[in-house]
């Protein structure tokens, strides 16, 4: 088979950072080519070079596509010849309809006048292709992330794609949605469309990839051909992190004590539609030294529950009691919730977690400025020490703690948000999708930190859509569906099937 794309000797530097050094990548026509590597290895950067986000001249090396050397000045250049990228962060306009989003910048128009009938027909056609049952009129903000991801793909199809690039498309999808997306890729392959897939979920990669390129520290370290022989996940991990990883989850002997956080009769109404109950009278108890998991589908109410407990940062007409160490506490504002020992690590680090324009140091201390100041005056050097110690402990990959967080790779941004809340020294840490978009090595490090917190007699509540992670880490797993807990399992008895069955059964009962 001949190559549709060849990238040769790509080197890209940012001020103070060499993100890519002499990377080579060959994608054969009609294959699914996976790119894996640790956070900050340079995967997204390489794809931005390929798609013209970083124009010709801002990197060195050459791009050969369909047998010709290409020099893209911008994204439009690469799109014209069929290279379409779907970025790590979705790029849809929330208040426009699906049809409007699909043809944004590519309107079905004659002399500047949009032919809506044509646009609608084509939208329906494209939605059918990606298996999305929604009206073209639906606003994008009203559909879930999984469906939004499909809209992005439909948008790519609207543009005559030959090489589709997906940067962590399944990071915020649940298993069903992820599977649907992967099946779609396989279908595209059958139609001769090549894809490049970046993902930290190795099981997905072994499912669909024909070839795997491993990038480490900005260089290609390995290219594995999955068609010749089955490639084990361990083999991929070894190439990624440069060593063997015997376990995915660090060992821990749980030492569970008295209840630390108790939530009683918790009711939350929808942020905007006040009459709708989102959380329906639930109770939750977490113990000292416990890692408690909350499983559930997207939209089950897990984030809403956590945020409403965390200083009423979600919802309205909230009622119920919160107890810490047996005493009722006031969590009516975020400040009070933090003072009372609760911390919440958001699932949406870009919008809710980081001040992107500020450096790592300032983000790390933001939730606990009192810890680095006296009398309202910040002690610069103390702050620096704190930031550096977290940088070391969590292995945040950066040029220095003065680097703006906007320039960090996704996984490293996550570590900064985590540092911020660890520095606030909570008694109960609520983690919402803590390892979304994080590589295997870094996951292990984050798990280790979770275990350390538990060993110190604190409690960790972990909301996650990654079942293996819940099963591997938690002492107890609660299953949430439609704003209520529908099942509870001990860590030992829980299995993926049992959890899924509990969700499905609850769904049937509700219907």
């Amino acid at each position: 088979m001949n190559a549709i794309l060849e990238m040769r000797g790509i080197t890209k530097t940012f001020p103070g950072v060499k993100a890519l050094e002499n990377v080579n990548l060959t994608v054969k026509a009609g294959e699914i080519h996976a790119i894996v590597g640790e956070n900050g290895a340079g995967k997204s950067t390489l794809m931005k070079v390929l798609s013209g986000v970083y124009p010709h001249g801002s990197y060195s090396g050459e791009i050969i596509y369909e047998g010709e050397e290409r020099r893209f000045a911008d994204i439009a250049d690469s799109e014209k010849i069929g290279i379409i990228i779907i970025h790590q962060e979705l790029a849809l306009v929330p208040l426009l309809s699906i049809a409007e989003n699909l043809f944004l910048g590519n309107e079905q128009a004659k002399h500047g006048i949009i032919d809506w009938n044509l646009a609608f027909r084509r939208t329906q056609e494209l939605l059918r292709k990606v298996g999305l049952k929604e009206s073209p009129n639906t606003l994008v903000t009203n559909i879930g992330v999984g469906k939004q991801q499909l809209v992005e793909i439909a948008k790519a199809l609207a543009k005559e794609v030959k090489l589709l690039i997906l940067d962590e498309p399944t990071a915020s999808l649940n298993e069903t949605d992820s599977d649907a997306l992967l099946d779609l890729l396989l279908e595209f392959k059958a139609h001769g469309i090549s894809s490049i897939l970046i993902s930290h979920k190795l099981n997905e990669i072994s499912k669909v990839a024909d070839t795997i390129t491993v990038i480490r520290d900005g260089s290609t370290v390995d290219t594995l051909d999955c068609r010749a022989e089955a490639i084990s996940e361990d083999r991929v991990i070894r190439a990624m992190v440069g060593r063997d990883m015997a376990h995915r989850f660090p060992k821990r002997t749980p030492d569970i004590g008295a209840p630390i956080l108790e939530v009683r009769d918790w009711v939350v109404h929808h942020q905007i539609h006040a009459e709708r109950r989102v959380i329906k009278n639930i109770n939750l108890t977490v113990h000292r030294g416990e890692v408690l998991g909350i499983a559930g589908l997207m939209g089950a109410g897990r984030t809403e529950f956590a945020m409403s407990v965390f200083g009423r940062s979600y919802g309205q007409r909230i009622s119920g009691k919160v107890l810490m160490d047996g005493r009722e506490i006031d969590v009516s504002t975020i400040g009070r919730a933090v003072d009372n020992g609760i911390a919440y690590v958001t699932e949406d680090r870009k919008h809710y977690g980081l001040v992107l324009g500020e450096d790592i140091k300032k983000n790390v201390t933001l939730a606990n400025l009192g810890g680095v100041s006296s009398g309202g005056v910040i002690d610069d050097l103390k702050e620096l020490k704190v930031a550096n110690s977290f940088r070391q402990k969590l292995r945040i990959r950066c040029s220095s703690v003065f680097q703006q967080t906007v320039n960090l790779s996704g996984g490293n941004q996550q570590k900064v948000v985590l540092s911020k809340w660890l520095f606030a020294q909570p008694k109960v840490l609520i983690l919402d999708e803590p390892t979304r978009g994080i590589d295997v090595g870094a996951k292990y490090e984050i798990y280790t930190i979770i275990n350390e917190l538990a060993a110190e007699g604190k409690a960790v509540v972990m909301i996650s859509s990654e079942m293996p992670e819940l099963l591997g880490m938690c002492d107890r797993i609660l299953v949430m569906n439609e704003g209520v807990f529908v099942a509870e399992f001990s860590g030992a008895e829980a299995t993926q099937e049992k959890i899924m069955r509990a969700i499905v059964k609850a769904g049937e009962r509700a219907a």
Partner: protein
Amino acid sequence: MSNEAAADKGPNAKKSYTGFLGNNLRDYGMMLSLFAIMIFFQIMTDGTLMRPVNLTNLVLQNSYIIIMALGMLLVIVAGHIDLSVGSVAGFIGGLAAVMMVQYNVHFIPATIICLVAGGLIGAAQGYWIAFHKIPSFIVTLAGMLVFKGLTLALLAGQSVGPFPQTFQKLSSGFIPDVFGGETLRLTSMLIAALLAAALVIANLRHRSNQQAHGVEDEPYAFFIGKNVVFAGAILYIGYLMATYRGLPNVLVVMFALILFYTFVTNRTTVGRRVYALGGNEKAARLSGIKTDRLTFFTFVNMGVLAALAGLIFAARLNTATPKAGLGFELDVIAACFIGGASAYGGVGKVMGAVIGAFIMGVMNNGMSILGIGIDYQQVIKGLVLLAAVFIDVYHKNK
């Protein structure tokens, strides 16, 4: 492990001149622009610009803009804008005149009442912005109209003055010379010398502190050069002023405020929170920062500073007129943006705003001396604003 190695790879460019310049280009660029503009007008005006009388006037003329720019910077960093400051300053000037001239209120209580009134005006506007989420642009546009109207009503369309002598001293007074120097006000000179020394000492201590923790990255030659230039500038300006009538009272007030706000923005938790608020309000709120209250107080602060500026301006003119404060907001906002503040919030420095205000001030002054009409002055100032912001954006996108 591989991770660690990569983390420590970092830029080895530490202490390299180009690396340092690259990171701090904006700060030095601003300073250099100001110097260049000053030298330009110094030459064009045959030395009139830096004549002691003119220099003193320049400070007096710009003090109220600079004082308001300090508050405006915080407002802009917090992600807002305040269009009402000119009208508020005018209104407070009128209030002061009515109290002191028509009701013979002593100047101390009158001043205090005026500052409190300014705070209340800020609170009234901040209330809608912070707690009801009405865009600051709209609220302060309304405020601008309201206070313009109220000034007219308060003064009944007339000019009111003159102010009591003691109050005039706020703007036209100079610090007393205990040595009674005739050609050189020794006290003023001494203060300038002490200031220069304090600056150098503070910088030295900061640097050695940084060195002890291995975080300084400023090349030695830069450090020396910077200190020589700054200390030299202070001494030179101090000397020039001392040969005239000494340091103006306003300059002292202004200087103290600049120091205070520099400190607040750089070193305090409140300052840090304002930057976080402007940088990402949601993230700041979820970090436990009371973003509503903080927004509210930036407007209260702005109101007080606008009141102070109004008082200084009224004292300088020695009368309150319905037209006072007209268009001040434009100069104030322009100063902040020329000084590198971002219209999107989260970015901006006090020193930048001050330098921005001086750039505007020197241009106003220089162009007036050259006899350029008010018409083309505005055109030129507008273009300078656009150019400054363009350079900023260009630098950032590179």
